């Protein structure tokens, strides 16, 4: 039973013409009709399934009865009070899904799971390699009942290899892929390594990469007449995103590292990055600075000499930047064709008129936390739309899915609940 999901109402700060709003409201997601089952926790696998659901796929998330996805207990929370229906991490990563609780340690739970898996296009899961097999739910078994099934498995180090059963949090993943210190972990500060990126970036990387492989497998199914098992190693997904630098190390022992003038500069009210890869971008920066004498010197016209005297240039840039705000420098540099970007925090980004005009933030209403702005997808489709809906409460859709779609009676569902199956 599939429901056409409509786009959420426009944010009230938007002024759009009536016809534009109406046209948007008619738009559906491009992945309407695709049926997804998700057995995942925390970030990577849930993000993969969220990406599909936000574009219209029908996603059923299977959660452990009682506790649900671990991310329900990771904040941030309103007032910093942990509450399993109020976790920002869960709320963001689980938009556009229905929640069903099943204990796969029980035979009944596994039986219900198999019934669900027999009638879907995609299963996204993140169990340790071998776990699904131990439960009798491996690819071969599921594909036997559903030859078109695409099973996307997302694990820290892949389904094979000596580290396949290794546990990993984001910290472990990020550094295992060489992203923080590709050239060499630091030795000068013996008590501190290079920092990873913030949030759960590497986990998001894995989820997005898995979503690409999954959609390709959907398209490939037409050619081969059957689905397949997609094995995503989070480590390898991240390595692919740093392929240029990492690749150099596989071919030469000490690849050169270094860039042109610019980079992170401190301003009056924070930081900004300015990049001058092309000569005309450097010239634009010179214009933006009002053509100071030091920049007009002969040596400064030659890119090679600029590179050689970078410290001197950085010193000049810092002095100039200290007199301006991040945003002043951003707009001034851009006006002269020089790439620049102010370091903004979440509050700044949510107030950014460019993001608001593009409706990048959409309001979703959730029964526990109410109306909150969520980042939507970074893509605007001319015919389709991002059609995200608020995350589900734990087991919210047991009646719809187990009762309605699978046909279990109220009495059966009651019994399952008593037994801890759901």
């Amino acid at each position, binding site marked *: 039973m599939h429901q056409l999901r409509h786009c959420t109402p426009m944010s009230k700060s938007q002024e759009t013409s009536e016809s534009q709003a109406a046209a948007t409201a008619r738009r559906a997601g*491009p*992945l*309407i*009709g695709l049926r997804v089952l998700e057995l995942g926790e925390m970030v990577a696998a849930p993000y993969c399934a969220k990406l599909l659901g936000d574009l219209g796929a029908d996603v059923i998330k299977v959660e452990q009865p009682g506790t649900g996805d671990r991310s329900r207990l990771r904040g941030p929370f*309103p007032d910093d009070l942990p509450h399993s229906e109020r976790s920002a991490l869960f709320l963001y990563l689980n938009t556009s899904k229905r929640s069903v609780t099943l204990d796969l340690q029980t035979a009944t739970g596994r039986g219900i799971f198999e019934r669900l898996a027999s009638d879907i296009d995609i299963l996204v899961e993140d169990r340790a390699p071998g776990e699904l097999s131990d439960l009798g739910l491996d690819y071969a078994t599921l594909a036997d009942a559903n030859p078109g099934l695409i099973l996307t498995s997302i694990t820290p180090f892949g389904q094979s290899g000596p580290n396949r059963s*290794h*546990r990993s949090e984001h*910290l*472990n*993943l990020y*550094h*295992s892929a060489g*992203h923080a210190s590709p*050239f060499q*972990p630091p*030795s000068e500060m013996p008590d*501190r*390594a290079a920092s990873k*990126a*913030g*949030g759960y970036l590497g986990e998001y990387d894995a989820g*997005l*990469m898995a979503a690409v*492989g999954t*959609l390709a497998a959907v398209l*490939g*199914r037409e*050619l081969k007449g059957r689905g397949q098992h997609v*094995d*995503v190693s989070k480590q*390898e997904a991240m*390595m*692919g*995103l740093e*392929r240029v630098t*990492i690749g*150099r*190390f*596989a071919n030469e*022992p000490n690849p050169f590292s*270094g860039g042109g003038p610019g980079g992170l500069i*401190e301003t009056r009210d924070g*930081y900004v*990055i300015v*990049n001058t*890869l092309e000569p005309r971008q450097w010239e634009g920066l010179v214009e933006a600075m009002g053509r100071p004498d030091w920049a007009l010197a002969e040596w400064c016209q030659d890119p090679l000499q600029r590179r050689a005297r970078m410290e001197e240039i950085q010193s000049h840039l810092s002095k100039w930047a200290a007199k301006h705000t991040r945003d002043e420098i951003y707009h001034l540099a*851009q006006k002269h064709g020089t790439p*620049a970007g102010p*370091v903004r925090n*979440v509050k700044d980004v949510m107030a950014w008129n*460019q*993001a608001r005009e*593009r409706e*990048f933030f959409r309001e979703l209403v959730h029964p526990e936390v109410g109306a*909150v702005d969520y*980042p939507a997808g*970074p*893509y*605007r*489709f001319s015919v389709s739309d991002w059609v995200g809906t608020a995350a589900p409460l734990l087991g919210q859709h047991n009646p719809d899915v187990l009762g309605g779609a699978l046909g279990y009676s109220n009495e059966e569902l009651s019994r399952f609940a008593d037994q801890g199956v759901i």
Partner: protein
Amino acid sequence: MTDASSNPGPLSGIRVADFTWAWAGPQGSLLLAMLGAEVIKIESHARLDHSRVHTLTAGSLTGGIDESPVFNDLNLGKQSLTLNLKKSSARDLVKKLVGHCDIVLQNMRPGVLDRMGLGYEDLQKVRPDLIMLSSSAVGATGPERTYTGYAPTFACLSGMVDISGHPDEPPIALSGSVDLRVGTASAFAVLAALIHRKRTGEGQNIDLSSTEVMSSMMGEAFVGYGLNGRVPERTGNRHVTQAPHGCYRCPDDAGDPQWITIAVSTEPEWDALKKVIGDDELERADYSTLKSRLDHQDTLDEVIGRWTAKSPNTEAVNALQAAGVSAAIVHSGKSLASDPHLAERGIYETVEHPLIGSVKVVGPPWKMDGARIPGPAPLIGQHNEHVLTEILGLTGPEIESLVADEVVY
């Protein structure tokens, strides 16, 4: 490398007209090529893809425009067609080619292709079900649509840089990997559009903002701000709600510093860590709750650091993992290249480039039927004859004339 003819790949039969250049755009078409799509890169001597010449991280590259390992890495298996878009007859050829393509990808500044008469409306006329994706710094609409950027600037605008790095240092800019995230999101959007087209017959135009890609990958911070008004702060390698959590130094290996990561997120994991480390100081009642461990992180890190200082990284990781603790080696580019797990996974593949020679590259990010490294990147204009004769049906003399007029250039 998989033999493409024997295992065509899930996107076999899909043809892409690829105007992208630099890093972000080409990553998108690279993923499609790895999945079996035919990607025709349209480039020109009059406007070189800068990764043929230099990069932000490596500066100018030695060797000619066909010898860039960076360009090779980002353009594996694509075809190269040189068309000088300044010439109107080149633009006519583009339109003819697009008539034979499913997808157009581009990442020039918003408006540039439109002014050349090669915008979505123009191209849709020759291919009604065309799927076109344009990626840009901040999007093709809105007051800042003419603004330009690279990976570090998108990352700054997105909010990601602000939350990345040690709390007592400036934020970190991340790297070109940000570009590749943008390309990956582009591939995802294009595949979604392909699925839509299969169902409805409709193509569409897609406008992708690089900055929004990065913001999407920290969405919980925005939702969190909406819930409790808090702007998150940088935590470096630490975690707001978990301890112990960080990087610990191990003995050097052949003069290279070695580090491992340890991240404890459950009580059983804490118990397991204590057993492995075996230091009485960790057994103190002081550390029996998560709160106390968060409060005493510096002390705990010191104790753990004393143990790792004596434990070679692989041994330390294996001992911790055997006990059920999340631990891993902090890799560098160099150590990745010799890691035994990755060797068994076969993640590095070798391509034979006609000028550079044998080059190792990172393999596809999925182990799946039909995904492969589709061969080396093309020499500039390498496929002119193939595309112009086989797809567009031009004759030899016609092509010669186009070359003489610097249309094919």
